[in-house]
């Protein structure tokens, strides 16, 4: 997987590469040179001797170009960027309602279960009269915040531990044993346990998800670093007395950018999904913190009533869009960031 929609792109690039090669061959063997010229010794030219194998290859340029060739991924990138921007702008738009206010009609009765589009509620209201539209966006904010925080912690801790584990030989045994023990702990279990014991809230969920999330990242980085640690260019850097920090940041980590970004992009949807799960079991976020998990959970209990299904439907659609987008963007970016795919 991860080659989603990519095969055609690769084949196309290979074809254009083939064309270029033939072109070049034709030029080199162009009949402008006479037979005699072709078989004489070339003069020594200082300028030509100095010429290195220079190419205008730029890593990020090629990565972005490869990424933007993937139409599906670009579509989802636009969708997710628009959505992100909107979640932040939404509270400041005119005519938006507070997600927590309970709306009453003129007789003081709550305006509950208002149909979408009626009485100025874009997506209607829920069973106690709160505006569903603003609740969905507030929930998206909470869920995205959880997702991004977990991904960030996973990246920072995972990279730190992975680099130490892979590069410092003395620590290898310690970290390997630690990993072997921690890796056996099921993540669902830890999530349930922490959420059960600590006070429910956003920070509890983030903490529980961060506790084991970095393990996979650390191990992957460690394995990669062991492979490239003693390559000649790193050996050369060490011999020249370049500080370890510089070797790590300039020689080792750039090599791993694609994997790091992919894991981060995939950590976001899984964190959001976990929040939905924990909230469903009843140890997630309290009801006054709107989140996609809360909304879906409330909607689910109204599933049997056909007229109220919109309360389940809208949050599920938003959640599905977010997770699928991150998943596809993550995979496509990882493919694009792999230099093997920069056929040029």
């Amino acid at each position, binding site marked *: 997987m991860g080659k989603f929609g990519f095969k055609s792109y690769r084949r196309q690039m290979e074809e254009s590469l083939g064309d270029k090669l033939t072109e070049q061959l034709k030029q080199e063997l162009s009949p402008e040179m006479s037979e005699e010229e072709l078989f004489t010794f070339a003069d020594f030219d200082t300028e030509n001797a100095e010429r290195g194998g220079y190419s205008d290859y730029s890593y990020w340029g090629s990565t972005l170009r490869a990424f933007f060739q993937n139409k599906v991924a670009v579509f989802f990138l636009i969708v997710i960027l628009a959505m992100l921007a909107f979640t932040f702008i939404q509270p400041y738009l005119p005519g938006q309602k507070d997600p927590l206010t309970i709306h009453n009609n003129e007789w003081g009765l709550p305006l509950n279960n208002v149909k979408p589009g009626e009485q100025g509620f874009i997506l209607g209201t829920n069973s106690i009269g709160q505006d569903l539209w603003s609740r969905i966006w507030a929930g998206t904010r909470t869920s995205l915040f959880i997702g991004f925080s977990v991904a960030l912690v996973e990246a920072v801790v995972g990279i730190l531990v992975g680099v130490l584990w892979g590069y410092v030989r003395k620590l290898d045994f310690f970290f390997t044993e630690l990993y072997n023990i921690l890796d*056996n702990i*099921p993540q669902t279990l830890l999530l*349930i346990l922490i959420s059960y014991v600590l006070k429910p809230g956003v920070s509890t969920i983030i903490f529980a998800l961060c506790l084991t999330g970095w393990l996979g990242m650390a191990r992957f980085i460690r394995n990669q670093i062991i492979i490239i640690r003693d390559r000649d260019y790193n050996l050369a850097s060490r011999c020249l007395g370049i500080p370890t920090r510089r070797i790590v940041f300039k020689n080792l980590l750039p090599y791993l950018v694609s994997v790091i970004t992919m894991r981060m992009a995939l950590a976001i949807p899984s964190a959001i999904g976990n929040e939905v799960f924990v909230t469903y079991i009843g140890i997630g976020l309290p009801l006054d913190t709107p989140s996609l998990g809360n909304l879906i959970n409330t909607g689910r209990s109204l*599933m049997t009533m056909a007229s109220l299904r919109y309360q389940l439907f809208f949050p599920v659609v938003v959640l599905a869009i977010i*997770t699928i987008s991150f998943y596809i963007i993550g995979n496509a970016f990882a493919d694009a960031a792999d230099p093997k795919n920069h056929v040029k």
Partner: protein
Amino acid sequence: MAKYIIKRVLRSLLTMFIIITILFCLLRMMPIEGYFENYDKMTETQIQAKLNVLGLNDPLPKQLWNFYKQLLQGDLGTSNVYRVGVSINEIVAEKMPVSLRMGLMSLCISLCLGLPLGILMARSTRSRFQIGDRLGTVFIVIVQALPSAVYHILIQFLGSQSSVGKAIGFKMLFEEGEPITYVLPLISLSIGSIAYYAMWLRRYMVDEANKDYIRLARAKGVPSAKISRSHVFRNAFVPLVQYIPNSILLTLMGSLYVESLYSIPGMGGLLVTAIKRQDNTLVQALVLIYAVLSILGLLLGDILMAIVDPRISFSKKEGSR
């Protein structure tokens, strides 16, 4: 080999010890309401008396020691809220068969559908339009990217509320002894693992198919069906063997989500109920079973893999897999 297995077993024991200790200490930090059926109505002296009986006023190391002693005798304690005074062993013995039956059925379904799907996709990568591969990839991306909550709810919703589902007679909740009510939970339980098995089998098979010995077989003129059956599939399946003991053991725990969604009276549903009603001893026992089962599953998986695949060398340093 023996050395490897001993080392692996010792490490699992250590992990189990760490998890159980952490679990025990964490649950002692919980409010004490979780040990009483009707905490609000009790007087302070009654509460203290009960705490003394349960041994909860002892210092923590002593409690831990007693807990381990109790565990080694195979006693998980008694439930204090969910079913007052009933031994947890009894509750578990009653719930486990339900989860096991459901889980084994779904495991069979996911292997029977997931593996052929993976083979089909892998073979289709060699065909011209790769239609099988593309369709399979779309299915896998959707199942992988959607949180499981979403597709479980969608399956329940579409199955029991849409007109087609109603016509077939699917029900929203599970009923013992009515085979038709098994269908929706089984779909929910299997769909994730179908995608999982198909995805990994496809990837391993594609990797395997690019190896030199396969090329040689092709060049020799071995029929491609035979290549994919007896060379590619056989080697590609080895890494997946590792997960099978784990899947079988974890069926004992059931699925938290699906079981409580369809109110199946199994282990997963029990854990959710115990958490919602804050029955501390029950939560402790169930989490403990869950942890032990999954550690045991990983252990068996590693050992099985070592037996199945003769290429795995034991002199190699562990962790550099």
